[in-house]
């Protein structure tokens, strides 16, 4: 058997098989379902590790299957996809554990975990896609697989959020499809390649290419929550906490951002995109979204809504870094792709724990909660300081490189945007942290724990909820602390960027 061919296929397939197995598991077979889930997730991590080692030793993994006469379905592992693979498989594993704890005792778990795994299949496909059409197929699949997760609770609000989500993302997908089709009419089937494939068309098709770029950005910008296309994201936070965590950290929004990164670096090629003049407006839009999202976050009462707007803002860090020409900006963007995932998933885990354990949803209900749940709030604090960009957290590392990228490109306004965003991040995260640790405990309205089955009696909440949050918080700390190591997200980002800018 040719592993170089089959591994890229097994990666998404393992989730697909998990999804199908879960379908046939009865609703009340909790243990079996959890076992299948975790087995699938573990298997995937092992495979990613193998593939990672392979790529490190210059192995090429590629699976090519003809879709039609001219189109191929290409699944390929390159350096960028490896970064995304590692992030999503790790976080997926943790989120599965979290979801098992979170949904304990609630109905429709089989349905939930089935689509959960389908979502993973799509994400794997997106990261492995070797050309635009493959990317698009999995991109649309992700849209459809996520919908049932968002409307999982079945309430009026959830259904509405689901409708909005579908409307936005389907239209976005259609626009992306149009852009892809346009590219195909110009150059035929293309592959992703560092340096881009469209440069030869420059002299004759300048305006068309600009139009295509805009079209693609608008299509991908829906999932990447670029202003003004971000409306669906804060609404979608009615989904259960594990779904929000995934949505905001790895799956949907990251697919959009990942698409933008691929578009700039592997379809257009960054140098060519600069010469087309399309990157500067994109960076301005991203800069505006950063500040806009932060300001909007400031005015949210609901913890998850605040976090959602914070995501809008943080995603644009990545877009900004990708759109500012120069190696430092690219490093910052790629590192933040991972860092934002780690930090934001921690925050959403914590929000989920607070909601599930004490019924806390508003930012003004957190007074004194740190004394009751020191570990949860400790994780929250680490992640929030990361979002602010305090050293040595992961967020600082990306902010530093983004700032450096801006300065080196001569765009000093990038620095101003980053500073403004950091200050705003302080303004909406520090009050929460302060209240949680130093506020007076609420005596009156504290609800009793909703969950009866604490695994460890002294623990502040059930272990499957707590552990993933602690692990991701730890990772957000170490990703920054040991940023200089080769195996840190920054190290990987540096390596990728080196190859990208190689002549």
């Amino acid at each position, binding site marked *: 058997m040719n592993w170089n061919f089959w591994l890229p296929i097994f990666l998404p397939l393992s989730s697909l098989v998990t999804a199908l197995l879960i379908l046939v598991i009865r609703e009340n077979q909790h243990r079996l379902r959890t076992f299948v889930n975790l087995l699938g997730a573990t298997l995937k991590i092992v495979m990613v590790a193998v593939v990672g080692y392979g790529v490190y030793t210059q192995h090429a993994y590629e699976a090519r299957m003809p879709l039609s006469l001219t189109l191929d379905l290409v699944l390929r592992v390159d350096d960028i996809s490896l970064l995304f693979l590692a992030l999503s498989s790790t976080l997926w594993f943790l989120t599965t554990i979290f979801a098992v704890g979170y949904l304990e005792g609630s109905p429709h778990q089989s349905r939930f975990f089935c689509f959960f795994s389908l979502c993973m299949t799509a994400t794997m496909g997106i990261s492995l896609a070797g050309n635009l059409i493959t990317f698009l197929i999995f991109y649309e699949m992700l849209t459809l697989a996520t919908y049932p997760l968002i409307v999982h609770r079945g309430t009026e609000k959830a259904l509405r959020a689901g409708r909005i989500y579908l409307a936005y993302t389907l239209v976005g997908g259609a626009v992306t499809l149009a852009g892809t089709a346009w590219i195909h009419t110009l150059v035929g089937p293309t592959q992703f390649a560092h340096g881009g494939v469209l440069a030869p068309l420059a002299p004759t098709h300048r305006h068309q290419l600009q139009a295509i770029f805009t079209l693609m950005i608008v299509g991908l910008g829906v999932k990447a929550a670029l202003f003004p296309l971000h*409306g669906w994201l*804060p609404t979608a936070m009615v989904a259960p906490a594990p779904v929000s965590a995934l949505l905001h950290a790895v799956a949907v929004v990251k697919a959009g951002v990942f698409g933008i990164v691929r578009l700039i670096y592997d379809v257009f090629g960054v140098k060519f995109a600069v010469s087309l003049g399309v990157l500067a407006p994109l960076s301005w839009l991203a800069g505006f979204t950063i500040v806009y999202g932060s300001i909007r976050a400031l005015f949210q009462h609901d913890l998850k809504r605040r976090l959602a707007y914070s995501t809008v803002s943080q995603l644009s860090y990545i877009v900004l870094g990708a759109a500012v020409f120069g190696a430092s900006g690219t490093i910052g963007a790629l590192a933040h792709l991972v860092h934002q995932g780690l930090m934001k998933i921690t925050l959403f885990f914590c929000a989920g724990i607070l909601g599930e354990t004490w019924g806390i949803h508003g930012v003004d209900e957190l007074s004194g909660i740190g004394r009751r749940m020191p570990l949860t709030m400790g994780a929250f604090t680490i992640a929030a300081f990361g979002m602010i960009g305090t050293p040595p957290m992961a967020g600082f590392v990306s902010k530093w490189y983004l700032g450096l990228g801006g300065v080196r490109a001569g765009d000093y306004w990038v620095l101003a945007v980053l500073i403004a965003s950091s200050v705003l991040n302080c303004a909406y995260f*520090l*009050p929460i942290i302060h209240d949680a640790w130093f506020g007076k405990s609420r005596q009156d309205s504290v609800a009793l724990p909703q969950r009866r089955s604490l695994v460890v009696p002294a623990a502040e909440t059930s272990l499957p909820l707590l552990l993933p949050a602690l692990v991701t918080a730890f990772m957000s700390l170490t990703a920054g602390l040991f940023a*200089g190591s080769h195996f840190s997200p920054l190290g990987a980002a540096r390596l990728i960027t080196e190859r990208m800018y190689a002549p």
Partner: protein
Amino acid sequence: MNGAILLVSALIPLVLAITGLLNGARVAMDRITPWAPLPALLTALIAPSLQVSMPSLLFGAEFDLDALGRVFLGLSAVLWLAAGHFSCGYFENRKSERRHRFFFLLTMSGNLGLTVAADAVTFYSFFALMTFSAYPLVIHDGTENSRRAGRSYLRLAILGEMLLLSGLLLATSQAGSTEFSALPKAIALAPNRNTIIALLLAGFGVKAGLVPLHAWLPLAHPAAPAPASAVLSGTMIKAGVLGWLRVLPLGDLESSTWSGILLASGIFMNLYGAICGFVQVRPKEALAYSSVSQMGYLTLAAGLALEPDGVAPAAIAACAAYTVHHGIAKAALFLGVGALSHADGPRVRVLLLTGSLYCGLSLAGFPLTTGAYAKWLLKSIPAGKTWNAWASPLLLVTSIATAFLVARIIMLLVRLQPDQVKHAYGFPLAMRLLPAWGSLVLLGVLGPWLLPIALRSAGLHVTSFSALEHIGGGAALVLWTTPLLYIGRRLWLRTAAQPAIPPGDLLTFVGSKLERLTPISKFLAVFTPWKKPFSRFTQIRTEGLIKAVVRMEEAQTRWDFGMIALALTWTTLWVFLHWRTG
């Protein structure tokens, strides 16, 4: 010896802080905590010159125990040692003591680490750790007053961090490296060096109490418990000066504009702090302003170090000497206030007051004190004719100002009514507090002899100072000060219920003016951490704007709007692109 010892000795308090959270470790922690800075002190005293780089840590962390770092490390360790012992039993409530201890140790770790950091990012990390962990120390007693103090501390601290980040980023992009060995030279050559220098000056200036960024100092010091104030004033504000000395292009600039600016602000700070402190009615506020005033000397020395003509080594040495002198004297004074407010017996009070008086005289630069020596070093920096001619009269004037402030502080200390007398572990509290305070005072008394030896063995070139010069230089000061203090006795003896200048002078003033400009103040109130911003924000005129934004966001959740938005965005962007690229 392995260079990792530098990192380890700085991280020991951090590890202890985390261990202390474990239930079982609490009793043992009570004994260990005060000794947490001991490894750092030993490192400063006996370790050879060390350098180590850790490429995996941060962006490649560099540590270096150079002369300046050694002095700062030693001073910090001594002060944290004293403050740690002082705080044993200082707190009545065990629970609040534990919280204090946790953040005390974190702050300590940040403070110790930054002295040995040899690259900008490592320095900045420890600096941030120190800054943010000190916040809970400021708001420790939880009163509205200390929360307000904490608020201004945090706001200015964040401002400082942001200025610093911008400055360091600009500098790093010029230097291509974050190492302190490369940064200053790159800054000197950078085309935008003035921006960089301004950002770095202001960024570290927040910590160093550079007027007008000093406003947090007189608010935060009185709010914090005595041991925290002692280290805040004794070593933490010095971290700002250390930052200046590490990153600024000392001696590499061609013009002396920046040097002049720093010199002028140093002198201004000195007098401004003295005046503001002089009108205070509570000793801790007056002491805090005295710190602003004394930081003026360090600012001035940093300014001289920026002079183009190679006086940097002498200025740096003077800076180090002054840092040690002021750190020990001011920490002893703050601890003295803490002990005095719990002292009942007359004998203890007399002892405490005498010690404080000695420290005060040392601040003013009286003969046979470290103050006289440090000021003499400042005076003898060979920074050109103008400085040599004007240094003596200038320092005489500032010393007289300081003497007035010291007289006022001692007056306030004499009048200080002790709180309810506490007992801890079977002793009257004041007795327990005495050893830590006493050792600092003793160190101050031995200072004139120890300090030159310590500085020289650290590797700084300082000249010794004979007793004759002590008396000769001090005579002028004593001769001037005594009659003036007598003539102006009404001023420093007067009693008032409220200080003529409220603590936090400028900030308080601007704040009260802003209250009247409602919309602006409400907008600023948004940035008030720990209040619900929205409830305040809705009351103001910008309500309409907010509503519009909210309505727009709501509209975005309708899917027909989504379609239109998509179409519009694409069209606008494309048209825009055409327009831009022709």
